[in-house]
């Protein structure tokens, strides 16, 4: 069953302390070639029936994202991308 994935990221101009902290930690792992890290939320929504993108967009707008500081995208994803393909 396909699901709807909502990706919520801080607007580009908003400070992302989380991403900053991770980026600062990378050199200690021996990683020197990362320019920036931004951290947001990924929300997977499963509908009881057909996945409903419009409905998902509405949920994202009202509940999942904070429009003051965040942007979001909504898209359909095949189940296997989200679940099984994980390494």
């Amino acid at each position, binding site marked *: 069953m396909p699901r709807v994935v909502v990706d919520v990221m*801080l607007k580009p*101009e*908003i*400070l992302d302390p989380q991403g900053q*902290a991770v980026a600062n930690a990378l050199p200690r792992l021996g990683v020197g070639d990362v320019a920036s890290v931004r951290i947001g939320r990924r929300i997977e929504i499963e509908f009881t029936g057909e996945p409903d993108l419009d409905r998902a967009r509405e949920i994202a707008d009202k509940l999942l994202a904070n429009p*003051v*500081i965040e942007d979001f995208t909504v898209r359909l994803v095949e189940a296997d991308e989200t679940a099984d393909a994980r390494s």
Partner: protein
Amino acid sequence: MTTHPDPVRDTPEAYSAPSQPAEPSLPQPVAPTAPAQPAPAVWTEGVDTVPRADGTPGELQPYTELGLRDDEYDRIRQILGRRPTQSELAMYSIMWSEHCSYKSSKVHLRQFGEKAPQSDRLLAGIGENAGVVQISDELAVTFKVESHNHPSFVEPYQGAATGVGGIVRDILAMGARPVAVMDPLRFGAADHPDTARVLTGVVAGVGGYGNCLGLPNIGGELVFDPSYQGNPLLNALCLGVLPVSRLQNKAAVGPGNVVVLMGAKTGRDGIGGVSVLASATFDEGSEARRPAVQVGDPFIEKLLIEACLELYDAQLVAGIQDLGGAGLTCALTETAAAAGTGMRVWLERVPLREPSMDPHEILASESQERMLLVVEPDKLDAVLKTCEKWGVLATAIGEVTAPEPDGRPGRLLITWQDHLVVDVPPGSLVDDGPVYARPMREPADLILLQADRAETLPRPADPEALRETVLRMIASPNLADKTWVTEQYDRYVLGNTVLAQPEDGGVIRIDERTGLGVALSVDGNGRYARLDPYNGTKLALAEAYRNVAVTGAKPIAVTDCLNFGSPEDPGVMWQFAEAVRGLADGCLELGIPVTGGNVSFYNQTGAAPIHPTPVVGVLGVLDNVADRVPMGFVPRAGGDHDQLY
């Protein structure tokens, strides 16, 4: 040090009360998404420089949109002898805003100084970042309460979080280690849907920031009233401790000293926030203003605290100022003005989060977690090293310059990639802002309100009615248990919390060796103040004083946060004036000084102001915190209890 005639207007008729800028006709320079361009299109070609301003005296400038009145703009031109550059205009609009200049409140606040009882404990008073009170031969404490009301309505979590962050930096700037916070809160009706958004966000923000900084929360207030529905109040108090010898000063002394910017990178946070968010009323336009919200990073602030304290202890700092609502603009001008020196700043040296920022944006940015240091050149290396140890960015961005040869204060010169974008007398932004004696009138409905006396209310006449009344009172959110809120705050961290919620006053141990400590309480009653602002404010003071006294402490100092509607409303202005008079008189009677505080105007929805809400904090000293008196009776081991009948 005033170089210009005092523009106080004594007669109310001398000016018509300005209306706050209505919806701007030009694009608003507040949205970081649409980079601020408070200027006609020609400016986008390049930077507006001082020579360019000289050569284009007639160029239209959007000063109205930035909240400046015609006569204020004229005064800027008169001060500079030309039109301001884009950067200068941004700086004046910020520094002359209500929020920074106290232009409506100044004439009233003077009473705090005039009526203040003599105190030899006061090491720093009103006008400093926070008042400092000596509590023993070696130790002093500093405390202050501040508002972050409007941002907390727009984005409750970040608004509240950065409110805590801001007051903590004020305390830090005095040389103190922050050791506790308190949070007086006001929300709309408890069952209103928007209260669920604002309350949960604000509480999570206060906790999120304070907990992460490791500051125990030792008290506060939680009040619901429909008058705060569209304008909740987030006041935050911070307490700090310092050895008397570590007291810091903001003055940028010593020509040749280096100006260092320390802490977070500068981004487009809250540009226009100070002039728009803090001084404007909320209306349909507030949606568009939303991106002016700042995001806080308590982790950086924690590192900033540790790094600053290490710098103080190593005596590496000649002057220090926190970057608050008005960002670099405020810090640069205030430090220079306080010393009478000038300053030379290379703005392109400021580390940016967004490389595309324009000079006026850098100057206006409200990015959090930053401090400005003045450092002797031979101590610069040591300063940078300490900052590096704590992982805090520190950059030399300028230099202190000498006063004019004739003894007049120096000038603030700011370049941007070799272009001179600012050339101003710093004092003109800090001390010479407009001051208004605004018209005041007792609100017309006050007589009616006062006539509706409690005595006329029906009294419970039988057990059933009594039961009914008790149940209604118990069910009131204002009397209900506050645990849902206070459980979200760390009260134990630092290990010196002797009393906290649900006690009437918080008590913090300051000196583990001697048991020396302080008690603190913050109180306010907007309903009472609405009925009688003079006595309502005295009542708030008396309540806080009592709450401190009953812990066993001796009250010695007062801080206040005055939350009111628009000062352009004569009724509000009257409430404000009465409240200040009440607090000053009350302090005189009790013999304790106001050491600092904050005024928050424009707390209203449309034309409807909140209840006037003066919040008063009182600090007391306990020679030995072991002698504190808790609220409840503590049962003794072995069952040998004192009994009270």
